[in-house]
Structures are given as structure tokens and as C-alpha cells.
């Protein structure tokens, strides 16, 4: 019985959603995914590529961008994938499998609020990650980027597309085991297609085309051109919009509470 408990209880009753958000937030912090993939992972990647960038200054090959510039959007996008493909679906699939969502559905609040709380929390993790990457790259590694309206627009589209993919996994994975397997495989594929090993800007031919029309590659391309160029290519924007609509539609079609 700590004294801290007595304070947090009873007085000034919270509304159901803020209480749910608080409890889901505590649960998220007791599991490693949100913090690890949303905050630690991008911090580590930024440090690595920031240091490589300072060791190898100047533009990369024929891309017109420095190493750090190339990797800023890649780190942001794979941070989004990390959160959306693991931290988001894991508790949803688990709580559905265990009957918890069904249990909540017998209360006046209903399980859709659990989903909403998870969305809010994980978007917060994703945004914390992007703030770390942007501030870190400018303040620590001296990147010159412009957070323009295009950049914000591209980021929102990327979040919409990538979080819809996360919900799609939560919708179609029948069990936690299946969800783990799907998330793992997709995350790995997305790391590659987003350009973690080989940025799309450096690639050429069919590989570059495949990357540019993948969910991750399109997001990276749009954010790169928004931050350091003139604005997102229309093809990248269109690609993200199509993926967002398709993923969201399938997720809504197949989502089950029990």
C-alpha cells in the first residue's frame, strides 16, 4: 500500500475514456514494444547514421542528398512500421483472444474505446519518435531540413497508410502466434523496401520502381522530397492514398471484437 495510491484514487473521478487511456498507457509501458520501437529504435538508428554521415560528408553518388538526409525519412518511416506492426496489433489480438474485448463489450463503454485508446497511444509513440529524429538530426548532427506543409502532409499520409496496415494485421490475424509471424515477416520486408539497407534513391531500374511503389518506399520518397526538395512526387502521394484506402477497407471489413 503505497501512499501514491491513495492520491490517485477516488477523488475527481475520471471519465471512462481518460481512465482507459491511462490504464492502456501503463500497460503499454509495461511491455517493451511502444517505447522500444517508437523511441529507442529510432534514437539508435539516428545515432548510427548520424555518425556515419559525419564520417562521410558530401552527397551520396548521384542522389543529391547526404547520407543523413537520405536516412532521416527512412528512420522515421521504419519507426512508424515498428509501432504500427507490433505495438498496435499485439494488445488488440491478445485481448481479443483472451476474451477481454468481449468482456469490455458487456460494459457501457464497449471495445471500440479500447481500439481508440490503442490508436491514440501508439500515434503518440510514433510522433514522439518523429520529434526525436527531427530534433536530433538538426541539433546534434546539423541537418538542414524544412518542416514544410508538404512534410506534414506526407507524414500524415504515411501514418494513415502504415497504421491502417497495423489494423489490418489486427483484423486478420486469428491468434497471437499468427499475428507475431505476420508482423515479423511484414516488418522485415518493410525495413528493406523502405531502404534501411539500400535507400531507394540510390537504387535503379525495377528495384527502385518496386521500392517507390511499396508502402514504405512511397512514404520515404514523399518525406525525403518534402524535407529536402521541393515537395512530394504525385506518384508517391497517390501510392500512399491507395494503400491507406485499401488497408483501412480490408481492416474494417474483417475486424472482429471476439
Amino acid at each position: 500500500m503505497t501512499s501514491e495510491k491513495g492520491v490517485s484514487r477516488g477523488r475527481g473521478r475520471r471519465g471512462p475514456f481518460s481512465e482507459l487511456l491511462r490504464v492502456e498507457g501503463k500497460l503499454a509501458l509495461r511491455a517493451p514494444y511502444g517505447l522500444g520501437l517508437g523511441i529507442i529504435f529510432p534514437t539508435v538508428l539516428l545515432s548510427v547514421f548520424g555518425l556515419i554521415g559525419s564520417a562521410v560528408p558530401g552527397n551520396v553518388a548521384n542522389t543529391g542528398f547526404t547520407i543523413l538526409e537520405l536516412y532521416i525519412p527512412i528512420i522515421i518511416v521504419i519507426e512508424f512500421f515498428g509501432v504500427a506492426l507490433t505495438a498496435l496489433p499485439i494488445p488488440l489480438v491478445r485481448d481479443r483472444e483472451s476474451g477481454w474485448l468481449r468482456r469490455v463489450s458487456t460494459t457501457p463503454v464497449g471495445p471500440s474505446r479500447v481500439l481508440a485508446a490503442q490508436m491514440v497511444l501508439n500515434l503518440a509513440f510514433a510522433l514522439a519518435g518523429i520529434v526525436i529524429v527531427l530534433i536530433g538530426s538538426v541539433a546534434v548532427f546539423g541537418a538542414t531540413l524544412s518542416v514544410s506543409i508538404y512534410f506534414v502532409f506526407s507524414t500524415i499520409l504515411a501514418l494513415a497508410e502504415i497504421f491502417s496496415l497495423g489494423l489490418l494485421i489486427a483484423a486478420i490475424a486469428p491468434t497471437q502466434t499468427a499475428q507475431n509471424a505476420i508482423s515479423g515477416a511484414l516488418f522485415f520486408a518493410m525495413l528493406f523496401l523502405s531502404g534501411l539497407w539500400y535507400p531507394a534513391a540510390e537504387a535503379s531500374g525495377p528495384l527502385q520502381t518496386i521500392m517507390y511503389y511499396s508502402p514504405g518506399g512511397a512514404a520515404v520518397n514523399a518525406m525525403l522530397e518534402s524535407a529536402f526538395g521541393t515537395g512530394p512526387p504525385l506518384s508517391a502521394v497517390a501510392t500512399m492514398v491507395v494503400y491507406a484506402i485499401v488497408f483501412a477497407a480490408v481492416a474494417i471489413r474483417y475486424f472482429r471484437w471476439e
Partner: protein
Amino acid sequence: MVDHLRKQYGNTLAVADVSFSVSEGEIFGIIGPNGAGKTTTVECISGLRTPSSGSISVYGLSPQKDRGKMREFVGVQLQETALPPRLKVGEAVNLFASFYARPLNPDELLESLGIRQIEDSIYKNLSGGQKQRLSIALALVGRPKIAILDELTTGLDPEARRETWDLIEGIRRGGATVILVTHFMDEAERLCDRLTLINHGAVAVLDTPEAIAAMAGGTRVRFVPSRQLDDKTLLEIPGVTQVERKERYVTVIGNGDLALSVMSSLAKIGVSVSELEARKGSLDDAFVELTKDGQSKVSRGTQK
């Protein structure tokens, strides 16, 4: 309240025809062998499932159409529901308290269920009994008018079961109606005002526990005779209608002052009896009688 409920899953008929009505403030029991359709019935009442046909009305509301309104005053304890593994006991109860308009005080509820001292434990570290009590706490914290409790005391030790029974009687004293699904006959006998026995998806009987127990037929006298007796001799004893044997024990079932009748009749033929035990037919006996079709099993194996 429930009228000709029928629920079919594909080709499997879970509930064929169940009708009953529960009065306000009573503890209504639903008993029956495994797979009889008990859980499906209460899940239809709580709005989790939609009946294939038939109708259910709870305070004039339909659990399916008016689900939103009903959630506020129906507390449900489901079979086999787990909480998020790292959720703490206190957090779970406070969370559920926040869902309702006028909840019970979470601390007092935990206290009365004897789990206040583990409020900082996370769910996956709880014992079976502790999980069960937490589940009860979640069903009651909203101060429900109707509490639907499914297999409430399964997995609890005898002491915890008794405490839970006191708690259920407490709920009723508080004015709530309780629908209790159980396969423990002693629990049904002790708690329920009325109960229905469901077998193969249909109501086999609906009455007070005493009346149902009486269906098992009068008195049972069990004893060890000083020498072997055949059935014919036993059935000639006035009042005896049925004879059962188990090892060296003989049980006669019948009416009237059976123990006295057995002793005097046997004394006349020079047989003495020892370890004599007489009792009224119990709910257990009635359960066995009413579900006797080779397919059902009794969960409490005291009387076969």
C-alpha cells in the same frame, strides 16, 4: 423474460427451446450437464449472442436491440475470460468503476472479496481463485440490477466458495437479481430461490430447489446389513420402492419412516444393520435422475 429461446450454430443446435421468467430480487439458478446450453442461454440474455428465434425481454428491453441501455444495469461474469496479463487488480477494478454511472467503491469491493491485499499484483501472477474473485469484482462494481454469473465458483477452494456465496447473498440483499449458472448442486441448493435444469438445450424442470430435490423421491436409507440380502427381501419392506447397491452398502429409496421400517423389518428376519444413514433426496439425486440418459455426467461424483 425468456421465451422459447432457440440458438443454432450451423448444424449444431445449442439451445432448442428454453423459456423461463426471473423475478426481480431473486437468485435464479441455471443448472445442467456440460454442453446443455446454459452458457449460450445467458450469453443471449446478456446480449453477446443473438438468438436464432424466440424472444428475450429484460425490464421490457431487448438485449440485442437495446444493448446500450442494458449494459448499464447488467453485470456479467463470463466463463474463461482473461484480463491483459500485466493489468493490476486495482487498476482493473478502478477502470471498470469508471465505466459506470454510480459504481461501488472499488476499495471496499476488493476488501469484501478478500483481494484488497493483492491490488498491486498483475493479472498473470494471480492464482485461479484470485482471478475468479477479480472477475466477480468486475461484474459487480457497476452496481448492476441484474448480475449474470457463469460458473462463478469453479476453481475456488471450499472456503473461497463459501465466501463467494455470502457475497452473492449480499448482492441480493442489495436488491439485485442474480442469474447463476452452475454445475455445483450444493451451490444451487444453498443459494437459489428457484432454478431451472437445462438438458439438451431444453428446460427439463423449473422449480424451487426443494421441490426439485423432492422429485428424486422421498427418503434414502443407506446401511450395511449383517448378511447378504437379495432385492426381493428388501423390496418387501414397507415403503421401499427402489434398491441400490454399492460395495457392501445397500441403499433403499422410498417413502414414510423408512429407517425405522428397515430396522424393524430386518430385525424380524434376524438381520442387524450397521452404519445406518438416512437422508432426504437431494438436488444431486434429482439431477442424476433428470439427466439420466447415458450422455450426461455429474460434476460432483458423490452419489452415483
